[in-house]
């Protein structure tokens, strides 16, 4: 009865799983979502809308392929428009997952366990959305495979000096490693679902993907090693992928693109947007599927803190860009930034600043960090702001570069907008399928951070370092779980 309270007092902070849940309860909570016979009508509605969005994306791509890139708003100075903005936007969102999984894992941030599956899935889906765009944005998409260094009769290699080629490698690697990482993490949980399966089809399918997991100590050993290695592999990729994406801009000589701050600035922005998107998705899911005990206010609060921190990082980047533009004495660069803030795209710039820098400041207040409504709204703001950040970088710089005679204004067309909306359709479709068919929380890992995982009730060393004297909690659970179950 008082075990959890004791633990809480001992730890000095809110436990990661509350509501007195034991291992079995965790398994039940997570698995039952996947095992439901009847899904709520809301899911079907959401799925219909998302699939409609996906269909829209397909239709827009079809129209694009039929007519040419001219159906978009891109023009002569502004050669890149929504497609590249969306690409960077989605790649950025695809950062949170691996960051949560890999970096927080290596840093033993155990609170990550409740959200990492979710975030990793989001990463995969976001990178899929991102990968759509470079392929379709080229003038002759049927030849996009020339971007890969393949031996074929033209006997041509790609140009290794081009950052676009580095992109191909960076994003490709990131996607592959993220996918593996996610899948490896899923194996024990898929095995749990398999074991609980009541139909043959489920048994076969989940069994196939469980790769024969039996939960032996050897399995767990291999699993932990593999997971650690992948985390170590993925960690530098978190930093590299958006750094390389930023090279597309930084290595060019366009004022407003050609800045050394871009790699860290992009990575910070990516984490920022990624966490915002995790929040955006997590908050409704958590409520709908009753996961409040697994994804606690503490988790959300931590994410808000990260939003606050990364929001200020990007704010710092924005200001240092201006400082360098002034301090560097390059009149072209100076103008590029004056133009951002006061030129024809000033509305975009100030949208970005308001959403990214100003809006997260509310998280200085504890009540805001603990208010579901506030954090949901702010997370949406950050998503909007981060999209506009890419818009401002891509469009405002291109539309006014060196020769004023070549300046022009860029306007998206309806196809641009519909394609962007459609990419959300793709994302949400994948996401809804994910929560329908795969465990959305890493059951095995969550159990690992529950007090029951420590037979001696010795607090986890990482947890003990915490200083947060968290608020009151719910009643502790009465019964012990069954230990790690499969």
């Amino acid at each position: 009865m008082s075990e959890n309270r004791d633990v809480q007092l001992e730890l000095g902070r809110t436990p990661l799983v509350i509501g007195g849940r034991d291992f079995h309860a965790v398994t039940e909570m997570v698995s039952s979502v996947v095992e439901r016979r009847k899904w709520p009508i809301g899911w079907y509605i959401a799925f219909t809308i998302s699939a409609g969005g996906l269909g829209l994306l397909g239709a827009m791509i079809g129209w694009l392929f039929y007519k040419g890139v001219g159906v978009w708003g891109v023009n002569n100075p502004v050669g890149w428009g929504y497609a590249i903005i969306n690409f960077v936007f989605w790649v950025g969102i695809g950062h949170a997952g691996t960051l949560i999984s890999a970096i927080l894992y290596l840093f033993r941030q155990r609170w990550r366990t409740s959200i990492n599956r979710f975030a990793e899935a989001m990463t995969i889906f976001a990178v899929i959305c991102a990968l759509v765009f470079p392929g379709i944005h080229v003038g002759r998409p049927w030849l996009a495979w020339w971007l890969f260094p393949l031996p074929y009769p033209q006997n041509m290699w790609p140009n290794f000096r081009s950052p676009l080629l580095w992109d191909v490698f960076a994003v490709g690697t990131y996607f592959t490693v993220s996918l593996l990482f996610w899948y490896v993490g899923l194996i024990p949980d898929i095995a749990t679902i398999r074991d609980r399966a009541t139909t043959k089809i489920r048994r076969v399918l989940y069994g196939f993907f469980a790769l024969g997991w039996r939960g032996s100590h050897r399995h767990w050993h291999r699993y932990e090693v593999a997971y650690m290695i992948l985390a170590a592999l993925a960690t530098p990729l978190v930093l590299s992928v958006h750094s390389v994406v930023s090279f597309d801009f930084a290595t060019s000589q366009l004022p407003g693109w050609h800045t050394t701050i871009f790699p860290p600035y992009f990575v910070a922005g990516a984490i920022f947007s990624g966490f915002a998107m995790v929040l955006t998705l997590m908050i409704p899911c958590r409520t709908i599927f009753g996961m409040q005990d697994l994804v606690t206010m503490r988790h959300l609060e931590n994410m808000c803190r990260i939003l606050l921190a990364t929001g200020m990082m990007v704010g710092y980047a924005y200001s240092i860009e201006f400082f360098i533009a002034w301090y560097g004495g390059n009149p072209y660069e100076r103008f590029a930034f004056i133009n951002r803030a006061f030129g024809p795209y000033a509305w975009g710039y100030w949208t970005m600043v308001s959403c990214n820098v100003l809006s997260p400041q509310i998280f200085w207040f504890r009540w805001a960090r603990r208010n579901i409504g506030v954090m949901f709204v702010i997370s949406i703001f950050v998503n909007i702001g981060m999209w506009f950040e890419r818009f401002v970088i891509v469009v405002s710089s291109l539309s006014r570069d060196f020769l004023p005679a070549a300046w022009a204004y860029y306007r998206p067309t309806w196809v641009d907008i519909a394609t962007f909306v459609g990419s959300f359709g793709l994302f949400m479709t994948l996401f809804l399928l994910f929560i329908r068919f795969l465990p959305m929380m890493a059951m095995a890992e969550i159990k690992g951070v529950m007090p029951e995982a420590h037979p001696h009730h010795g607090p986890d060393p990482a947890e003990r370092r915490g200083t947060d004297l968290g608020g009151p909690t719910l009643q502790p659970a009465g019964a012990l779980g069954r230990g790690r179950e499969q």
Partner: protein
Amino acid sequence: MKNGNDTTTGKDYWRSLEEYAQTPEFAAAVKREFPNATPDMVSENSRRDFLKVMGASLAFAGITGCKPAEGWPRWPEEKILPFTNRPEGRMPGNPVYYATAMELAGVGRGLLVKSFDGRPVKVEGNPLHPESQGTSDVLSQASILEMYDPDRMQTLKEAQGSSGEYARSWSEFSVAMEGRMARHRGSRGKGLAVLSEASSSPTLRRLRSQLQSELPESAWFEWEPITRDNERAGSRAAFGRPLRPHYRFDRAQVIASFDEDFLVSHPASVQYAFDFVEGRRMAPAGGGHGEHGGHGNGDARFNRLYAVEASLSPTGGMADHRLPVAPSEVESVLGELAAELFAAPGIDASAIDSVRSRVAAFRQGNKHQAFVKQLAQDLLAHRGASLVVVGARQTAAAHALAHAINSALGNVGHTVTFTEDPAGNDAPHAVQIRELVDRMKAGRVETLVILGGNPAFDAPADLDFAAALGQVDTSVHLTMYANETTAAARWRLPRTHYLESWGDTRAWDGTVSVVQPLIRPLFDGRTPVEVVACLLQGGLPKGYDLVRETYQTAFGGPSGESFEATWKKALHDGIVSNSALVSVNTGIDGASLAAALGSFTPHESRAGAGEIEVVLAQDACVFDGRFANNGWLQELPNTFTKLTWDNALLVGPRMAQEMGLADGDMVRLEAQGRSVEVPIWTTPGQAAKSGTLHLGYGRRVSGKVGTGVGFDAYPLRGSENLHLAVAKISKTGGNYPFSATQDHFAIDEAGFKATQARLSSLIQEATVDEYMHGGHAEHGHHPPALPLWDPHEYNGHKWGLSVDLNACTGCNACVIACQSENNIPVVGKTEVSHGREMHWIRIDRYFRGDPDDPQVALQPVACQHCENAPCEQVCPVAATLHSHEGLNDMVYNRCIGTRYCANNCPYKVRRFNFFNFNGGMSDLEKMRPNPDVTMRARGVMEKCSFCIQRIQQVKIVAKNEKRPIADGEIRTACQQACPTQAIVFGDLNDPKSEVRKLEESDRTYALLDPELHTKPRLKYMKRLRNPAAGLSATHEGHGAAGDDAHHG
């Protein structure tokens, strides 16, 4: 073409028994089927000669098999003439050049046209022509597009009341005309009238006088909307007889232009622009310039140009001092100048005594004192080497006064000479067409033959020509395109393009060119000469015979050896030697001059309150409306407004501000009870209380391209004044979307400031004084730039291009030449508004200083072929590469279209095929493109290649001949077209080459190179301005380093 008549020679294949039998029925059937092909094109003998001259080609032979009326192409089925033995000198795929000429508004332009396998593909200037000297202008360059235009009138038609139009054959027309002519002959031509475009064709003149002598009661009128009648009237006033002035700008040290855009809009502009720039070449020491020679010794002779005008013209843009005044006030400034000059001591008094007191009136209230005094002082200091020119839109009195001034300054015979005017004492066009309309309305015209033109659209609005035309029993319109007039005419005759015609014409200086066809008419067309001859002689005489007949006497006897030799030489050279007008000695006729200046009094703008003066101007693209269906021209950005596919009422920024008008706002202009609604476009430099409206837009009946483009200005144009309308202006509300290729004047504050701050380094300028004293050199400090990669080595050729900003008038000839040479597609107004125009070379235009009296800077920008090219680094598939000769090559079939190269290009010269812009070409249009240049597909990047196809051609020839490439042998299309030879291409590794010398000049700079270290191969030469020391700062040139803060 062989027919079943007795001129058939050669191999005797027969197509049917009837043919074999040579029955009359067959002959009739042939005549019905191929009316324009019988009898044979020329007589047997001359046909062979013709072929010799023309070089019959496979395609040519193919075309003869086509029956034009039934769609194109129709390749011959029965008869093919393969070259089993290739004719000597003919290489398939090697271009052949033919000299010909194009007539525009009665003045010929000498051309040399490139033909591939029987298809003309590119128009160039004729180097042997005294005016062209190998260069050409926008309109002649673009004219080739019209020949392949499927919208042309293809077949002869007859309208019958309201029941529609019916296809007819030329023989039916001929028969119908024979009947009518018989009746007219009975009444000595009463009721017959011909309305012709202005034409200087000696053959047409010959036929015209024949018609008038045979049918003395018939009437022949001429109407040309863009007319220089006032100039002719002015010289008649000054000298007592109609003379045509010919200017020698190269000899003038001080030039004052009063509303005369002699650099671009004059019929002889190609020559005048060259001469003018010749007078201000600051040649590098030891270097001549181009094939035209030049000053080889660093000559500091540099003319000074003053311009007084209402609308900003290329001439005003080039001027060292420009005075914007209301259009009607221009002549007052001229009066002030005359007053100032005639009061000067030592002026040649005899010529001007009669008007001395009259012009003295202008001294009072001298509004433009500083300008006029300085100009007068300059002119007086350069007597005999100065020049005052007055534009065609100015009054006859102004022209007369200018002649008096030139005469008093001793310029006549030096900087200006006079010849007889070929139009002689013909009444002005406005008078002629009014006379015709009066006759039509009075029912005195039964048969009206309209040769070309479009009077129903462009005749003075008060005459209502279209209504009058309805009262004519039988109207005939010969026209290349069905237009507003055609729609009201009964007989609608297709006219041949000049590249399909035999004809002749005279240049501004009188030089006669024989127009020879390069291709057999694509459609069932005929020339004006042929139609007039049809009226005169009956039947369907051939243009070739008619033209030859004209020269039979001139070239010394019929069919004599000497005739053939002279004829061939005339065809080959494109000019008839010694045919230029002869200059005459002349003196001012004091009495006549005084009479002309009788009502010449100082005045300000004639516009009252709520009114403006509207200049009705010739358009640089559609001219008077005739080129409306020419996509190249419609899409060609205006030099200053950068508008495409439209005209607008151009107003000054101050006026727009005062009236609360933004670009595109609609206004109503009302004059003499007629009104138009047009959108406005703010244009710096437009004089206060005035506007400029270009003619020729708003065509109601044109082809797919030209119908409904822009706004018709003709309703404002009354016969009393063809050039100026004083109109009430009122805002109507509503806004019209324009498509301009460059951000215009009204830009946000930040952008405007940045533009102004950059100008001094982008377009570098200096005054002549600064340049001579070396005070022009530095442009800011830049940290040393280091290359990221090892620099390229260029062991063979190293191609480079030099653009002399001092010589660029902004005439756009290079843009169209490039479009024609490199198969650049037209994208349409919507795509231009999306910033997707495809021109490989664009002319950047900037203003600086007072928005209502700005300085203009122009800069042609094409691919700079950087040695350190930003585009090359970023292409992921290596589709844009550096050649061993320093060209930045674009590999179209490797390009996947990431557009990264365009983003990284600091000059923004790369053009992307956003759609399949070359798609949907008809088979006819497919004949036009230059076969040496790849047509680019959708999704591919393209850009200037330095005309690599021309480089390769010369390289191949030189290699076969085992010789080095001579300097100047390779000429890019833009270079070739440029009337002022501002563009020079060559090998930078050749120490003797022109381009190398220019590159080493201290005037040469590389755009953005100090900042970006791109090492461009295209280099610019600073523009020099030559401001007079005595003029106030607002008119002063300020090209010095760092002086960049002038903006309004």
